[in-house]
């Protein structure tokens, strides 16, 4: 059954249906509906909602709950996600699963509360200190937000690693039809590695401390092997008219939705445009992008930032074809016309050369 739901609330509902019973958070716009939804719904679901004194405290509560085997999450936006980086690094180091939602707003600094995609570097490069990565899912609709929440928890558990869901303010605030998955019982998840088994048989210590260089290197190599496996098995992207595309737009989240409109408009004018939409930002869909541009003479990365994902696009296909960039920032959302116009100009310039 489809219901009408706000993006942020859909995240909350999907999390509860995915068996998440612990939420620790701190207020920040534009994601407040997530903690508010959890405060309302979690207690009756037998869970715990706790408003922390800061994002630092919230992520460290997540760390403690994850160490004790909880299916646990937090959510925030840019300035708060910056504060959470300490805890995310510890979660990655101690190999603990959890979900962190970033409903992106504009920055740097306090910035603004309007939608943005400027946290791409922070999300995909690890964000905090040390040799680690977080898996990053980027939904483009309320339905996909609901679907990817469950997927995020599964991935977090499968690889025992923190997973980030990176939406933007517009996705968080908009209402759309959504069909939720059936609730699952997550109480039988394998948490044999967690503290507090209470059997006295094997003492568990969960830590990221490692003062011996060789042993620390070993740990980092193991983490790297895990990320390689994630790259191999978990990469997700959507192709939209890429098969015969002469020009390929590359965009994720809200920017990708607008790009779809641009592709439709350009196709109506007889221009063979296509779109490759990364659904995982880390791992970045390199193979999928290579496939998408196989008949193209131009790739255009479109972002609600001044050019962050475009670096991954260039790393993947920069030596195959020209990669251009177009972005709006600060909370300004590009229009379909704007993007179509930019692509047409670039194609014309390319033809004139």
């Amino acid at each position, binding site marked *: 059954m489809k219901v009408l739901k706000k993006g942020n609330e859909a995240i909350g509902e999907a999390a509860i249906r995915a068996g998440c019973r612990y939420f620790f958070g701190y207020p920040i716009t534009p994601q407040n509906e997530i903690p508010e939804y959890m405060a309302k719904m979690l*207690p009756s679901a037998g869970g715990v909602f706790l408003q922390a004194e800061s994002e630092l405290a919230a992520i460290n509560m997540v760390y403690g709950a994850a160490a004790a*085997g909880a299916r646990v999450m937090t959510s925030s936006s840019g300035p708060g996600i910056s504060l959470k980086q300490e805890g995310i690094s510890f979660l990655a180091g101690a190999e603990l699963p959890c979900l962190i939602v970033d409903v992106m707003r504009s920055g740097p600094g306090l910035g603004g509360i309007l939608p943005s995609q400027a946290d791409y570097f922070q999300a995909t490069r690890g964000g905090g200190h040390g040799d680690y990565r977080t898996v990053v899912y980027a939904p483009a609709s309320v339905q996909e937000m609901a679907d990817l929440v469950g997927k995020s928890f599964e991935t977090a558990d499968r690889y025992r690693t923190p997973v980030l869901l990176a939406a933007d303010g517009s996705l968080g605030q908009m209402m759309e039809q959504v069909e939720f998955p059936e609730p699952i019982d997550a109480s039988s998840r394998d948490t044999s590695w967690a503290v*507090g088994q209470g059997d006295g048989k094997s003492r568990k210590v969960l830590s990221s401390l490692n003062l011996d260089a060789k042993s620390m290197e070993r740990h980092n190599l193991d983490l790297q092997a895990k990320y390689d496996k994630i790259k191999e098995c978990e990469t997700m992207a959507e192709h939209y008219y890429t098969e015969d595309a002469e020009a390929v737009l590359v965009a994720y989240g809200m920017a990708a939705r607008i790009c779809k409109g641009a592709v439709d408009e350009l196709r109506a004018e007889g221009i063979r445009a296509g779109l490759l939409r990364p659904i995982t930002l880390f791992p970045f869909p390199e193979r999928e992008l290579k496939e998408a541009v196989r008949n193209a003479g131009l790739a255009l990365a479109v972002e609600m930032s001044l050019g962050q994902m475009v670096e991954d696009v260039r790393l993947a296909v920069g030596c195959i074809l020209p990669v251009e960039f177009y972005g709006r920032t600060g909370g300004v959302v590009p229009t379909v016309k704007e993007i179509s116009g930019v692509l047409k100009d670039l194609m014309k310039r390319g033809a004139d050369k």
Partner: protein
Amino acid sequence: MTVVFDRPKSLTDKKFHYCPGCHHGIIHRLIAEVIDELGIQYRTILVGCVGCSVFITDYLDVDGVQSAHGRGPAVATGVKRTRPDHIVFTYQGDGDLAAIGTCEIVHAAARSENITVIFVNNTTYGMTGGQMAPTTVVGQVTTTTPEGRDARRCGYPVRISEMLATLEGARFIQRVAVFDPKMVREARKAILKAFKNQMDGVGFSLVEVLSACPTNWGIKPTESADWIRENMLPIFPLGVFKDVQPDVSGQALSGQAAPGAAGERG
């Protein structure tokens, strides 16, 4: 042959790495004795923090979670809320708890998080080499106050026990020392109470233990007791600052106590 003195069951056989004259060893042992006495070794979870005691998870034979600097009370909150049937405690130094972790300790106490906190105050950052701590006494020489702590530039030491005792949620706060046998016995009693409170669902309990750091104080271990008596006791007097039972009216307002929060026996 009768055994009159032995290693507590909850202490591993790993040798302490602590400097001569350091009090961490005594405090670790007291905690292990209390855990044994209460019979909770297999349902105790230790949250190790950052400082000289960062390796405490090697010494206490209980489950452990290693926290980031100062975040122990937040980590313990997450653990306790998830496993309310377990006994959860943090072991924090004064740099960890009274500087970088001030926010987390204040709010864990304000929520009356049903955890136990062992707070070891030696007036300095031991592990990083003896820098000024929030608890460094005025005039004390440290590596970052080479002329002695000057109150005009560096302010005054923070009295955590007195400060936390003003909070409604703080149920039991006592400051103890371990530099003579009588004090050690008193410290053991305080630690026992702080753990027992958690089992009885009383709420937030903290024991501050004054501890020696002769290495960074630049004195001999044998001079430490006098140093504490002369320099610490006037500023950090021993005593019970708070000892109350849970305020049930707060729970009535919120309807039901959350798992892990005060009032829930566990």
